[in-house]
């Protein structure tokens, strides 16, 4: 069916109108402001200690053990506090509900000492037993937690979660007394403390859950232990948090209130930022066409993100089961041109499966653009100059950006390899069903790390992992991942992981395309919000500085691209 003629015209009109507006943004008459050309829109600082931001979606579940999305996580980590919390700049674990911890020499036993005097918002003391109960609840298969895997480093956690073991007391987490928690791990896990900053590991109030069931997270029932508590939850309208006076570090919480809006329309959210209705439009909330020119503004913040955009290949379908075909597709892709032309340089090209920035990790050589090599590979596969190559499809979920990238890839493959490729799009849920069910040939995908370690990427490509979704299976790869898991020496462990990534790239069930970056808009009077590799921002450390002009901004709030 043809769309009415005016649709593209109208879209063009609104977009160009928006661009004009944005272009004039600096000169717009902001009451009481002048010379604000450096900033995008209003920079009038609020006089109250209220921080407003776009959470981009309604938090679905406020139950930390059950949730699985960033909008939910942002709210949950303001409401609850784990044993450790993430540093707002580096995300390194710093003391939270536990004020210190001991690690055994073999790295497999942790003992956490809880802070004295920490309380739930209903007045009850937070105990080590709360953590034990919360974690075992997450692991209990009947709970149906999606993220139980975060706890799989703990002894017997997986067996209990996957119903191979029914006795919860054998799971390696135990309250030694009210203020001491012992955790035993299956193997030394250098990033274990990082895992504890994840929302799945937050404590939950047992008595409230047992009393109210699913309805325990309603604002009238919920009991929290974090820096903020719920003030009001207006469905699809706003989510308001107030400072929690019962929180142990309340003296250092500099906001009286946080208001989160669930605006999923990117243009609307960015408009709200420009008009000064919100102080922060997080990464992912800015429409792609606006990114190139927003770079001129000082309140547009860029940071490396631990995420990679890639194409995944269904290796169970001929001719993609042939490794030479997969290598040819990989080598024929000119990532640099794609990123410069299609993405206007807003994201760096990437030829590895793991993202950058892991301490001590030396990645294997990245996949390079080499059309000659690609044609040789294709000939080795039995399709010299693409002759007789069957047509296949690139599957994307419906989105303008994905389509433009797919069309560029399609053109590159046609140009370098002379193979026929089509692009097909599906709406989100159908696309998910197709990729998980291996009902595709080549599909757009991306992966976002959960913790700062290459294993958060490499683990998913193990044989049979639910996120593998390529049908690819390599005994060598699985063996290396297992070896790395058991390795106690961090440096050797990283070397093994690097070898595993080399195996993966060589066998090419994936085609890396670009490295994600966080791109967010933060008003200049907001302090304590830094770009981080996990795009996670502990709200406890955020403050509003009405006198921001006289206080210089910290230098590390943005990075240059490339």
């Amino acid at each position, binding site marked *: 069916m043809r769309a009415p003629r005016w649709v593209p015209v109208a879209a063009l009109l609104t977009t160009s109108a928006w661009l004009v507006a944005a272009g004039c943004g600096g000169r*717009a008459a902001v009451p009481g402001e002048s010379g604000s050309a450096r900033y995008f829109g209003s920079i009038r600082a609020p006089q109250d200690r209220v921080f407003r931001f776009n959470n981009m979606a309604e938090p679905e579940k406020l139950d930390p053990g059950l949730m699985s999305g960033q909008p939910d996580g942002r709210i949950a980590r303001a409401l609850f506090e784990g044993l450790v919390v993430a540093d707002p700049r580096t995300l390194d674990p710093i003391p939270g509900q536990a004020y210190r911890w001991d690690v055994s020499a073999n790295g497999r036993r942790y003992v956490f000492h809880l802070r004295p005097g920490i309380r739930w918002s209903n007045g009850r003391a937070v105990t080590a037993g709360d953590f034990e109960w919360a974690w075992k609840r997450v692991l209990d298969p009947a709970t149906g937690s999606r993220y139980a895997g975060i706890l799989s480093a703990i002894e017997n956690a997986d067996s209990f979660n996957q119903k191979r073991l029914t006795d919860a007391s054998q799971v390696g987490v135990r309250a030694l007394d009210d203020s001491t928690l012992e955790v035993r791990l299956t193997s030394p896990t250098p990033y274990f403390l990082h895992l504890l900053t994840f929302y799945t590991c937050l404590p939950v109030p047992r008595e409230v859950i047992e009393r109210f069931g699913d309805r325990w997270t309603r604002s009238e029932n919920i009991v929290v232990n974090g820096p903020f508590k719920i003030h009001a939850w207006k469905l699809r309208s706003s989510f308001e948090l107030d400072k929690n006076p019962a929180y142990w570090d309340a003296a250092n919480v500099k906001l009286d209130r946080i208001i989160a809006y669930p605006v999923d329309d990117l243009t609307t959210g960015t408009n709200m930022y420009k008009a000064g209705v919100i102080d922060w439009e997080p990464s992912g909330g800015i429409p792609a066409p606006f990114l190139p020119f927003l770079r001129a503004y000082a309140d547009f913040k860029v940071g490396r993100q631990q995420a990679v955009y890639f194409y995944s290949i269904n290796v169970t379908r001929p001719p993609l089961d042939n490794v030479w075909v997969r290598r040819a597709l990989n080598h024929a892709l000119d990532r640099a041109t794609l990123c410069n032309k299609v993405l206007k340089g807003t994201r760096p090209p990437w030829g590895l499966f793991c993202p950058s920035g892991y301490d001590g990790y030396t990645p294997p050589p990245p996949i390079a653009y080499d059309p000659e090599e690609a044609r040789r590979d294709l000939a080795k596969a039995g399709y010299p100059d693409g002759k007789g190559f069957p047509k296949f499809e690139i599957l994307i979920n419906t989105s303008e950006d994905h389509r433009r990238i797919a069309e560029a890839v399609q053109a590159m493959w046609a140009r370098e390899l002379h193979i026929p490729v089509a692009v097909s799009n599906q709406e989100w849920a159908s696309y998910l069903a197709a990729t998980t069910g291996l009902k595709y040939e080549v599909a757009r995908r991306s992966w976002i790390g959960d913790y700062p370690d290459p294993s958060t990427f490499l683990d998913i490509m193990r044989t049979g992992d639910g996120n593998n979704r390529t049908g690819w299976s390599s005994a060598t790869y699985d063996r290396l991942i297992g070896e790395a898991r058991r390795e106690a020496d961090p440096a050797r462990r990283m070397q093994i992981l690097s070898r595993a990534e080399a195996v993966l790239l060589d066998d090419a069930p994936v085609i890396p395309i670009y490295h994600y970056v966080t791109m967010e808009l933060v008003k200049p009077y907001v302090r304590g919000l830094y770009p981080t590799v996990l795009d996670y921002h502990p709200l406890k450390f955020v403050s509003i500085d009405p006198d921001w002009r006289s206080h210089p901004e910290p230098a590390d709030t943005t990075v240059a691209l490339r």
Partner: protein
Amino acid sequence: MRTFLARRLLLLVPTLWVIATITFFLMRAAPGGPFQSERDIPAQALEALDKKYGLDRPLVEQYGRFLVHAAVLDFGPSYANPAKEVREILFESSAVSFELGAWALLLALLVGVPLGVWAATRQNSAVDYTAMSAALVGVSIPNFVLGPLLVLGLSLTLFWLPPALWTGPSSRVLPVLTLSAIYVAYIARLTRGGMLETLRQDYVRTARAKGLDERRVVMRHAFRLGILPVVSYLGPATARVVMGSVVVEQIFAIPGLGRHLVNGAFNRDYTLVLGVVLFYAGFLLIFNLLVDLAYAWLDPRVELA
């Protein structure tokens, strides 16, 4: 009259049942399910969730259970938001949609009717042409263009009004203007047409001949009859204005019904979609019935049987 009402009310039941059945099976036929996400959901978690919401039962049993509960307006909790009942979500968001629609319609009447009368009394003058050209523009500009343009001018350039949300009186202005524009234009044109027709009637000439001043002729005598097309238009317009605000709700991030329908369908939130669809359907059916009754009341020639 009474039998008409009884028959129409009884007809509601099978109609809603057909709609509910089609929606139920269409939703289930769509690929994917309510619990999948970009990240894999472990088999044991999916199993636990399916069991909890009864999705592990045979489809026919699920359908039967849904019908029994839907009969008492109990759709269960939303899958995406298990702490909230679908009923509760419908209640909260329909209040917002109704308010938005009511303001838009009120504005459309307050502006459209005087504009139409004014244009009619000065037919073929500059006033008439200006008003009717404006109305033509109003009818032609789709709200997804008008909304962003208003936001651009009034909130991003002049910083007078918030560009989105539904939080205070000032946040009502732009969405109401956007939603009402087309109705203002349509009502103005209808009023003008009705008035022109009436102003040529004999009884108006008589009134003028009696020496009544023009103001009385127009407002007292002509207006009553000239406005009738608008009255009959109000019925379908009300239904449409309340339900046709999906786009406006999206542009202005308003927590109304329409967005639940769209998001619910994308999320495969079965319970929410069924709830919203049945709510819309019920509203539309009842409103059509009210319009039929109103016609009969306004025009004695219409017989209800």
